[in-house]
Structures are given as C-alpha cells and as structure tokens.
C-alpha cells in the first residue's frame, strides 16, 4: 500500500534545528528518537527542551529498535480527504514503538483488511521517486 501518483509532489518534512537529527538519521536509514540523558526518557516529536526536567543540553539521539505495534490508524478510501499524491486506498498508521513514543507513517505490503490495532510492525526505509527518504512499517513476527 501507499503508492504514489506520478507528477504530484509528495510533501516533504520541514527540517529545522530542533528536528534535524531525526531527519538526518532517516536519510541514513536509521530511526532515532530524542532522549533525555538526565531523565532517561524519550520524546517525540523532537523539541528544544526536556518537558520533564527542563534541561536544554541533555537531549541526545538514540537509535530505535524499529519495532512497535499499531496503536491506531486511518484508512483513506476516497479522494475527499486524501492527498492526491497517494493512490487510494492507503493507510496512515500510528505506531507505538518499543521506546514508548508514537509515530505516524504509511504501511508496506499490508493489505487494507490486515491493518488493525495491535498488529506488530517494524520500520523500513524507502527512497521516494523525488529523492527523499521516508520510513514505513511492515508486518513482523510478534
């Protein structure tokens, strides 16, 4: 699932100083999360201050296991709300990672009726036709 329609630009993430480490890692086919070394807590999306201890200099990037389970999802089935770069239907999943944070992405080789809450998934990376790198989730053994 999640195939692209040719000729329609795929939206790119906006990379700024607070999330650059995240997207740099994606470019290298790694999934990292922001981690506070003082509190030993993960946060996502990246931010400039640890909300637990208010430190701004203990934030580091830690590589994720890449594994999680589908926490919730949306199935786009009509062009009313869907972004036209995607061929219908496509799913957007909210995945709860083993580190405790949740991220959104598309799926890879999961049939629409297989997408369900609780499905174990793992991250994979894909080079898009426009040159950007993005991550998706595929099924894994629990």
């Amino acid at each position, binding site marked *: 699932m999640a195939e692209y329609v040719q000729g329609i630009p795929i939206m790119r993430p906006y990379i700024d*100083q607070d999330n650059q480490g995240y997207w740099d890692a994606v470019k290298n086919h790694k999934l990292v999360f922001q981690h506070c070394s003082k509190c030993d807590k993960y946060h996502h999306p990246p931010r400039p201050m640890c*909300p637990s201890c208010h430190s*701004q200099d203990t934030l580091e990037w830690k590589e994720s296991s890449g594994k999680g389970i589908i926490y919730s999802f949306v199935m786009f089935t009509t062009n009313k709300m869907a972004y036209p770069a995607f061929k219908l239907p496509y799913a957007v999943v909210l995945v709860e990672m083993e580190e405790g944070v949740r991220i959104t992405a598309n799926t890879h080789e999961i049939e629409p009726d297989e997408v369900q809450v609780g499905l174990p998934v793992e991250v994979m990376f894909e080079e898009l036709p426009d040159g950007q790198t993005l991550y998706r989730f595929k099924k894994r053994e629990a």
Partner: protein
Amino acid sequence: MAIESIKDKTAIVGIGVIDFSTNIGRSEWYSACQCIKLAADDAGLNIYDIDGMVKNIDDGPDPSYVQKGLGIDNLTYHSESHWGTSAMMNAVQGVASGSCNYCVYYQAAHRVSGPEKSISDYRVAREVKDDSLDMIRYDFFSPFGLIGQPGYVAMMYRRYMHETGITPEQLGWIPVVDSENAAKNPNAIFFDKPITIDDYMKSKVIADPIRELDCAPKVDGAIAIIVTTPEKAKSMKQKPVIISSNAAGMAPEGQFHTSYTRDVITELPEMKNMGDELFRIAGIGPKDIKLAMLDDTFTPYVPLQLEALGFCGKGEGAAFIEGGERIRVGGELPINPDGGLIGQGRFDTTRIVEAVRQIRGTSTNQVAGADTILVASGAGGPADGLILRKA
C-alpha cells in the same frame, strides 16, 4: 474608561532574557523555552506554577509548542495580541481577573536568522500573513517604490521637519545618547563605544531624510516576563514591580507608519490616547515620571512621543532632545538608559525589562530614584504602555 480597576492589581516578579545575537544558531522555539525558564528562575518560581501564557502573534511559537518543552499540567489562560508589547495587557487582565495566577509574557523572535529556522507550520503561517498584510495596506505605495518602514517613516519625518524645523543635528541626539547608554549595557550588542553627533551626520542616508542610524537594527532575541498579583509577589524572590497602569491606544485613520490620510501626520494620536489613559488610571501626570522607556525603532518617533505623552509641548520635542542633556541618566527625563532599540536591536519587550531592572535598582546604567517609569510601545501604529512603580 472602566479599567481603573487594574490599578496596582498586578506586579512583575520575573524577567528572563537570553543573550541577543545577530546569528543565534538555534530555533525560536528553543529560545522561547529558554527565556521562560530564565524568567521562572529569576522569579524563584517553579515552572509548573505558571498557569497563564501570552504573546504577540508574530513573535515566536505559540503556547502549545512552548508547552511541549515546559510540560505544564494546565494553562488556564492563554491568549495572543498583536502590536508592540500589547500582549502585556493580556497578562495584566488575565491575572487581575483571576483567570490565572502566574502569567508569562514571552517574545521569542529571531529577526535576523529568520523564522525559517523554526517550526514549519508556524513559519508558513507567518509568511502568508505578511503577504496578505501587504495586499491590504500597501497597494497604494509599493508601485511607486515607497517600500519598507524607513521610507514610510521618512515621509512623515520630512513633513515634521517642514512643520517644526527639527533638523538632523537635533534628531541625531537620540542615536548618540542611545549609543552612550548601550556602551554601558553588556546586553546591548550594537555599540561597544559611543558615537558622536558628527558620526551620526556622516552616517548613510538611506531614505532621505532617514539615516541608517535612525533605524533600530534587527536582532535575534527572546524575553519572558512573569506577572502575578502584588499579594503573591510579596513572598517571592525579587522585589516586586507594581503595574500602576496599563493601556492601549488607537486613533482614526491609523495605518502602520503610513497614516498619511490624517489631517496632521506629524503627531502620534494613538500614543496620546494611550498616555492620557495611563496617567488617568495611575492618578499621576508626566511630571511624576522619573524615567521614560520610549519606542526608538525609528528615531523621529522619540520627539513625537515626548510631545504625545505630555513631556513637552507640541513641536518642542526637538529642543528637548538636542544636546542630550535632558534625556541622559541624570537629566530631567532620562530616556532608554539601556541603549534603546537602536543599541539593542528591534525588540520591544527590552523596554519592560529595563524598567523592571531600574525599579529593582539593578540596571547597569542606574537612574537615581527611578521609582516611577513610563513604558511606551507601538509608535507609528496602535500604541500600548505601562506605568510601573516601586512597591
């Protein structure tokens, strides 16, 4: 006319100022979180006690972003305002009405590095908004090359010269005194040493009659100010600074720096309305003010503010500033002892910070007996201001 009720109802108990820069290398989001933390430290307040957050729409990420860093359980009050330091009014109203106990007003703006170094949707919103502003307001100026704030102000200033006889040799005392004060302020990044009136006269005329030195430079900065009630302030770390009055002002035919449709374009009626209200609420007059923090984003507005706020008569602003004696520390009415925006960069909340330091007695350029201070913002547009006093 009903806001007498705010008199002495609120106090400033914390200020947080990051190191200003012309190339800060971090996001506005980072700086917003940082200055709030600094202000809470200054106030001796636990961050989780903050329950109100206000800001100017254009400056920095909104409270929902800042909240991602601060992790406060519940903000019972959040609100945004538009111009100058008018979000201060939101803070004062929020605390005085009881909607929140500790309200932080933050301004995080990287005007040199640019908002593109910050979060994406907020950046887009800002760009779109700026464009639409141009569509509505400046259609009748831009095709003729009347573009940019220095030019807008120059049109008014030329007329002011014509009507009152003010000269560059007189107006130049604003940047000269600003530079003297900035040289004493370690937070002011633009003048290591003072300039002279000759330096000013030799400086580049960019939109004749406006010189480069008449315009406050852009800067990357962030400031947070914490407001609470005087009762709560009593037991806090800093000597409280009481907000005697707070008011805003608008007037007919106003348009940012381009109120050319007014019968007289060389007055600041918004500032006059605001000042009248400030004095009425506080129950004092211009003579009671020991120090004035005036908006020097563009220097011609300083003599105009002196006239509008009743510190001198109409057309007397030029004589008041000439030679600098009356506006220096020790003079009749010291103005901007922190170096103003000419010395620190375009950042309106610096005026409130310096007023707080002066009343606490911790300024690096202390005015003796500075117990009652007027702060004015928004010259050339909708005005807002404060009268602050010692507890």
